């Protein structure tokens, strides 16, 4: 009934190492990310000071191979998911300001050719985290999520790209873009496209949520690149489906962190808020919403952990990732909307963070490739 085999017992406790990382990142989320979430949203990006602190977490150098200045440590998917959950508890945009470049670094470290690694990896350690923009989100809504709204056409030594991508985080900071494109055979691969390449047009897009970081839209019209600009080299082919599935687990882990934040916020609020002479949480109509919120959040947590654990076993995790992502998208938004509802009119204003979480949670199920495990 399962297509995995393992001798390890069923377990839901954190290892000592996982607990240490969790405590550190959760504290960072509470003391650095949460208090700065509104400011970042108003400014449309994190402050330089905050970015330095995020960078100092060293999450990216950790996974960069030693040859390129990093520590070269292999991180397991469960630990990655835990880190994303912990950070998103502070703020989803700010968590993504590190999870997106981390995903780019992971992709390059795992799939790029030696020349590409040498060109792009060192800067993650000693330069900007945002020198490469990730273009995976499709601009057309009818495109299969495992395919691209950009088409790649081979012509001799060249590849011609046509189409648009949206939701490129920190796109204006980037010098190069890593764009997914589908070819005639239906294979979807990633391509490095330089900002100054002919046929590249960049514009800024704002969204209803995730406003704590800037986004770009990229339009490629007859953009001619060399075949060597394909990720991994001309003859390399990435398992794009697996990449999307991995990042769906990552997005679900981010959603989980936000759901937990909503739950932890509404509990004290409804316990203190008095109406009709008693705390509103004394009423079943309020209390049961919170019970369901707690149930679905815990369920989402276990779904995320299981998907990541399956990936760590190197078995097919497509179905589990799909179920988790679907669950996160549906229940994440339900928790987001209930969070605002429980605060009533107060929840609708900027006085409380629930309206911000509501907007951010809408990104789950829509936004692809915002985090990887």
């Amino acid at each position, binding site marked *: 009934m399962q297509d995995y085999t393992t001798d390890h017992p069923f377990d*839901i406790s954190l290892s000592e190492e996982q607990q240490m990382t969790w405590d550190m990142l959760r504290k960072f989320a509470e003391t650095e990310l949460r208090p700065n979430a509104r400011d970042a949203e108003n400014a449309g990006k994190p402050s330089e000071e905050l970015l330095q602190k995020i960078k100092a977490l060293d999450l990216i150098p950790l996974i960069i191979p030693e040859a390129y200045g990093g520590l070269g440590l292999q991180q397991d998917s469960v630990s990655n998911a835990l880190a994303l959950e912990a950070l998103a508890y502070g703020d989803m945009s700010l968590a993504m300001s590190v999870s997106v470049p981390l995903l780019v670094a992971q992709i390059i470290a795992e799939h790029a050719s030696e020349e590409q690694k040498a060109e792009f990896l060192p800067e993650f350690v000693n330069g900007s985290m945002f020198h490469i923009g990730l273009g995976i989100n499709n601009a057309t809504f009818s495109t299969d999520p495992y395919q691209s709204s950009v088409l790649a056409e081979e012509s001799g030594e060249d590849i011609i790209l046509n189409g648009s991508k949206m939701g490129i985080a920190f796109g204006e900071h980037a010098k190069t873009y890593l764009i997914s494109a589908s070819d005639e055979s239906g294979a979807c691969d990633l391509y490095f496209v330089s900002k100054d390449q002919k046929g590249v047009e960049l514009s800024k897009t704002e969204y209803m949520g995730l406003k704590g970081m800037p986004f770009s839209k990229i339009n490629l019209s007859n953009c001619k690149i060399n075949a060597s600009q394909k990720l991994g080299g001309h003859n390399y082919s990435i398992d794009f489906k697996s990449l999307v599935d991995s990042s769906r687990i990552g997005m679900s882990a981010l959603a989980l962190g936000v759901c937990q934040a909503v739950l932890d916020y509404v509990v004290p609020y409804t316990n203190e808020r008095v109406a009709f002479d008693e705390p509103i949480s004394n009423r079943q109509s309020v*209390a*049961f919403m919170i019970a369901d919120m707690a149930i679905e959040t815990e369920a989402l947590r276990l779904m995320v952990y299981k998907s990541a654990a399956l990936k760590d076993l190197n078995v097919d995790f497509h179905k589990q990732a799909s179920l988790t992502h679907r669950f996160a998208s549906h229940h994440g938004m339900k928790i987001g909307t209930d969070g605002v509802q429980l605060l009533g009119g107060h929840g609708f204003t900027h006085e409380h963070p629930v309206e911000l979480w509501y907007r951010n949670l809408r990104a789950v199920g829509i936004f692809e490739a915002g985090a990887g495990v």
Partner: protein
Amino acid sequence: MIHPLLPDQLQKTQETMRMAAEFILRPISRKYDKAEHEPPIEMEQLNQAAAAQKKETGVGEDSVKSMDLTGRNLWAVISLEQMCWGDVGLFLARPGTGLGNAAIMAVGNKDQKAKWGKRWAAMAITEPAAGSDSKNISTTAVLDGDEWVIDGEKIYVTDGDRSDCVVVWATLNKSMGKTAIRSFLVEKGTPGFTVARLEKKLGIRASDTATLIFDNCRIPRENLLGGKEEIETDIDAAKKSFGGAMQTFDNTRPMVAGMAIGLGQAALDMTRALLAEEGYEDKFGGSMHQQTAVQYELEMLEAELEAARLLVYKSAWMMDNKMPNSKEASMGKAKAGRIGNRISLKCVEICSMQGFSEEHLLEKFSRDSKILDIFEGTQQIQQLIVARQVLGKSSSDLK
């Protein structure tokens, strides 16, 4: 290390019990759904299969940590989930163990466990005027010399007719509320104890549901299960006493939730098999622009079921590791109860006339599933328990 996956040993349990469900239960599913109140004679086979599997896995009588691969409660949830994939009603009707056995093991003393542990014990709590509000029962127990005298009426007693004995909840003094409630073991054949009638039901028809009458029924003094003969005046001790009785539910809720998971999976599997005959294929991970309405629906239901399953496994794992699991047991029961019901009803709808017809078992699953969101604590009782714990409230604050 976080690893919410089943080790090979437990996967083997799944496979074995699934085979037993498929070859022993499924062929007689419809027979006993139609022949309500007829004891299913084929069930001894299932007990043998379960016992053999238990021995093979090396699951002991005492709780063993899941860390040792053979946590007894996780093992139990996994095997009954598979048996209920076969048929929930028949699973409940298998001779030998009832909910009363869980109570004996949870609160009984050593002598009581030795004497009644292996007998088939039903559990009698509900009364015509007291259901979820179990502290409000009216059946009385009065100590008279060396005997307790039990008087009252109990309803909806699963296995009430076929079991060897019944664990009966009664009050020592109704005006004292929950502090005066105790459980007693009454053996079949005790004068004054009669089975008044059997219910005709929406589902789980293979399982007998009885009304029991206790009229001046005298039982030995040592048949008081757990708890003291006197009513505690100290409030904390009193709370602990009733809490002790309620603790049984922390152990049984993961089991009942497991039943709902097995049933939900059965409905999904059968639906897919029927749809496949007309060319259906799953499309997991597709966007709503690619998926058909049915692909979208089945993916969501599968996700909900998997979520419920993991909550239930976690609550059983906690039991195996001696962690307090009251909140988690209720979370799992709430989620599994409602999802099992939703899935089975939706599957009938998806399979249209075939789903609604008695040619297949989908309609039966949808009738059987309803009780799983009611007994062992209704959906609403589970939500109350979870809400009180999450919000830090007492039962007088959050009624």
